[in-house]
C-alpha cells in the first residue's frame, strides 16, 4: 500500500518573505495553515476534484513582470480600470480618470483605510487553505468604496494578468464596500500566460438598499490553476448579482458564499465552458439568514473532451428566514462520451414558510433541435455547433456592458467551434 506524500505546496509558498503590511491578519492566517495539508478526495466537498497534481508542482511566488493589455481593454471602461500584473499594481496599464467623485478605486498598497476592512467585510465561513494562503501572502489588490447613495454609471474594470515561465503563484485580493443606496457594476477578469496558480479572494459588503452587479470572467491560461474564494454580505434590501464565466485554467474551483439579510436579493449565475482535460468545480453557499430574501442561481456547464464539471449548490435557510424565495437550476450539456458532470443541490431549510425550487438536467443535444436546423440547410456539424453555442450563450445576453457581451459571444463562438458559422455576435 502506498501513502500519498504530504503536500509541501503550502509550506513552499509560505517559505518566501512575508509582506510587511497587515502583519496581524497574515500571522493569523499562517497560524491556521500551520500543519495543514491540501484537501484530498477523501475530504468532504473535494471528492471530485483532485489536487494531487497541484501538490506535485513546485510553485514559487511570481516574479515581477509587465504585460501588454491593449487587447483586453473595454471601451466603456478605459477610464475606470485597474490592472494588476503578477499580483502587483500596474500603474501604466491602469487609468481611473473617469471615476465619479467620491468613489474610491485604488490599489490596496495605496489604501490605508483598507487595513480596517481586511477580513471584516464579509464574515467568514469555512476557510479554504487557498483563502488563508492569499491572506498570508497577497502583494496587492484593489479596494473599491462606493459612498452612500452614489450610483456609478460607468462600470469598473478590474483586470488580473499573470505571466510566468515557471510554476508560480499569485494572490489577488479585492475588497469592495457599497454604502447604503450605492450602486455599482464591476467586471473582474483573470487572464494570463504560463503555468501559474492564482488564488483570488474577493470580500464584498453590500449596504442597505445598495446594488452590486458583478461579472467574473476567468479566462486563465490552459496550464494554469485558479482557486478563488468570494464572500459577500448583503444588508437589508440590498442586491448582489453575479455571473461567473469559466473558460480557462486546467483546474479551477469557485467558492462563492453570500449571506442575505432581510429582504435582500442575490443572483449567483455561472457558465463553465470546458474541454480537453479541464476540471472546473463550483461549490457555492447561499445563506438566507433573515426573512424575505430572494436568490436565483442558474449554473450552466458545457463539457467536451475528458473535461469534468462539478457543481455543489448549498442553500441554507435559517429558522428566522421566513418568506425566503430561493431558486436553483443546474443545466449541463455533455458533448463527448468521456465528459463528466457531477451536480448536486444541498438544501438546508430550517424555516417552514419558504419557496425553494431546484432542478438539475444533464444531457446531450436534442435530436429534434438538430434536425430542425438541418431541415433549414445547416449541415450536421454546423447545427450541433450552433446549438452548443446557443446553450452557452443564453447566459451572456444579460451582460450589461455591450463590448464585453460581444467579446464574450465571440469567445463562446470560438470555443463551441461556431466561429465558422460567420459573425453571429
Amino acid at each position: 500500500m502506498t501513502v500519498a506524500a504530504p503536500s509541501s505546496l503550502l509550506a513552499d509558498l509560505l517559505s518566501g518573505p512575508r509582506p510587511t503590511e497587515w502583519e496581524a491578519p497574515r500571522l493569523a492566517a499562517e497560524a491556521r495553515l500551520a500543519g495543514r495539508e491540501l484537501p484530498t478526495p477523501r475530504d468532504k466537498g473535494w471528492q471530485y476534484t483532485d489536487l494531487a497534481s497541484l501538490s506535485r508542482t513546485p510553485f514559487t511566488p511570481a516574479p515581477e513582470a509587465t504585460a501588454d493589455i491593449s487587447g483586453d481593454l473595454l471601451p466603456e471602461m478605459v477610464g475606470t480600470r485597474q490592472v494588476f500584473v503578477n499580483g502587483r499594481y500596474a500603474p501604466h496599464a491602469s487609468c481611473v480618470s473617469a471615476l465619479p467623485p467620491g468613489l474610491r478605486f485604488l490599489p490596496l498598497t495605496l489604501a490605508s483605510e483598507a487595513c480596517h476592512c481586511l477580513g471584516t467585510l464579509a464574515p467568514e465561513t469555512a476557510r479554504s487553505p487557498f483563502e488563508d494562503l492569499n491572506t498570508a501572502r497577497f502583494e496587492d489588490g484593489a479596494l473599491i468604496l462606493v459612498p452612500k447613495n452614489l450610483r456609478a454609471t460607468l462600470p469598473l474594470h478590474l483586470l488580473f494578468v499573470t505571466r510566468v515561465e515557471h510554476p508560480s503563484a499569485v494572490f489577488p485580493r479585492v475588497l469592495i464596500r457599497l454604502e447604503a443606496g450605492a450602486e455599482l457594476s464591476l467586471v473582474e477578469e483573470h487572464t494570463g500566460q504560463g503555468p501559474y496558480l492564482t488564488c483570488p479572494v474577493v470580500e464584498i459588503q453590500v449596504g442597505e438598499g445598495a446594488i452590486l452587479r458583478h461579472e467574473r470572467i476567468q479566462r486563465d491560461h490552459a496550464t494554469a490553476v485558479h482557486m478563488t474564494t468570494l464572500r459577500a454580505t448583503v444588508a437589508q434590501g440590498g442586491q448582489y448579482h453575479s455571473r461567473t464565466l469559466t473558460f480557462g485554467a486546467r483546474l479551477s474551483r469557485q467558492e462563492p458564499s453570500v449571506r442575505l439579510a432581510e429582504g435582500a436579493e442575490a443572483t449567483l449565475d455561472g457558465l463553465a465552458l470546458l474541454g480537453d482535460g479541464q476540471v472546473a468545480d463550483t461549490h457555492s453557499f447561499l445563506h438566507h439568514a433573515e426573512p424575505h430574501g430572494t436568490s436565483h442561481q442558474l449554473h450552466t456547464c458545457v463539457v467536451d473532451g475528458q473535461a469534468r464539471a462539478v457543481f455543489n449548490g448549498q442553500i441554507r435557510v435559517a429558522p428566522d428566514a421566513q418568506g425566503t424565495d430561493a431558486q436553483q437550476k443546474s443545466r449541463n450539456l455533455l458533448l463527448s462520451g468521456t465528459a463528466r458532470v457531477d451536480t448536486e443541490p444541498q438544501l438546508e431549510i430550517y424555516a417552514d414558510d419558504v419557496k425553494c425550487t431546484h432542478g438539475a438536467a444533464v444531457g446531450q443535444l436534442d435530436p429534434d433541435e438538430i434536425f430542425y436546423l438541418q431541415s433549414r440547410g445547416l449541415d450536421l456539424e454546423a447545427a450541433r455547433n450552433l446549438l452548443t453555442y446557443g446553450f452557452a450563450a443564453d447566459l451572456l445576453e444579460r451582460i450589461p456592458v455591450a463590448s464585453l457581451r460581444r467579446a464574450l459571444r465571440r469567445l463562446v463562438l470560438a470555443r463551441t467551434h461556431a466561429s465558422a458559422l460567420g459573425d453571429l455576435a
Partner: protein
Amino acid sequence: MLSIKNLTASINGTPVLKGIDLEIKAGEIHAIMGPNGSGKSTLGKVLVGHPAYEVTGGTVTFEGKNLFDLEPDVRARAGLFMGFQHPIEVPGVSNAAFLRLAYNKKAEAEGRDELDPLEFDDFIHEKIKLVSMKEAFLDRSLNEGFSGGEKKRNEILQMAVLEPKLAILDELDSGLDIDALRVLGDAVNKLMRPDHALLVITHFPRILETIRPQFVHVLSGGRILKQGGPGLAIELEERGYDWVVEEAAPGGHR
C-alpha cells in the same frame, strides 16, 4: 419535380405509411387532407428526412435524384422545405443570425454570393414585411416563447428567405386567427412561382380558400384513399371524412 412510388414508412416499428403514390410537377399546388392520425405529418417528415421515421419501402425522387440518398440538410439546400406543424424552440440562437446562416448556406451551395450582416438586414426587411412580422422578433431567440401563431409566421419567414422549389406546409392554419391566416396564405401565394410547387397538408379545408390547390388527396390509415380536384375539398368541408373511408373499405363502392 417530386415522384413518390409505393412509399412505406414506420415509427418505432409501427407502420404508418402503407404505400403512397404521388406525383407533383412544377407549377402545381397539391393538398393532402385527412383525419387526425392518418399519417399526413409523417409523410412530410419522411420527405424532409426526420430521423425518427424509418423508410421501409418504395422510392422518392426529387428533381431526378433519389431523395433517400441525401441528408436532410442537402435536401434543404436542394430546394425542399417543410413548414412544421410544431416548430422547435432553440434558446440562445438569435432568429436573425439563424436566418442569415441558413440563407448563406444555401447561397454557398448554389455558388451565389453570401450576404454580410448589413446586406442581410436589407434583404430580411423585405421578407418580414411580406409576412407582417414585427422587427423585434428578429432579435429574439429562434421560436423561444413564440405563440403558436408566431411560430407559424416564422416558418413562412424561413420559407421566404430560402425560396424553396417545393414547400410542404403542415397545418399552417393551426394557431392562426383568420387575419393572420390570410396574411400568411397571401405570402405563400406570392412566393409561388411557375418553377415551384406546393404541398399543403391540412385537416381543415379553411386554408385552401386562400392557397388554392389544383389537386386534393385524401389520406387515411397511411393510404391515399381518394384523389380529386378543388371540388373535393369543398365536398370534404360539407361531408367530413367518414364517407371517403367507407367508400374505400372492402365492400364499399368506388
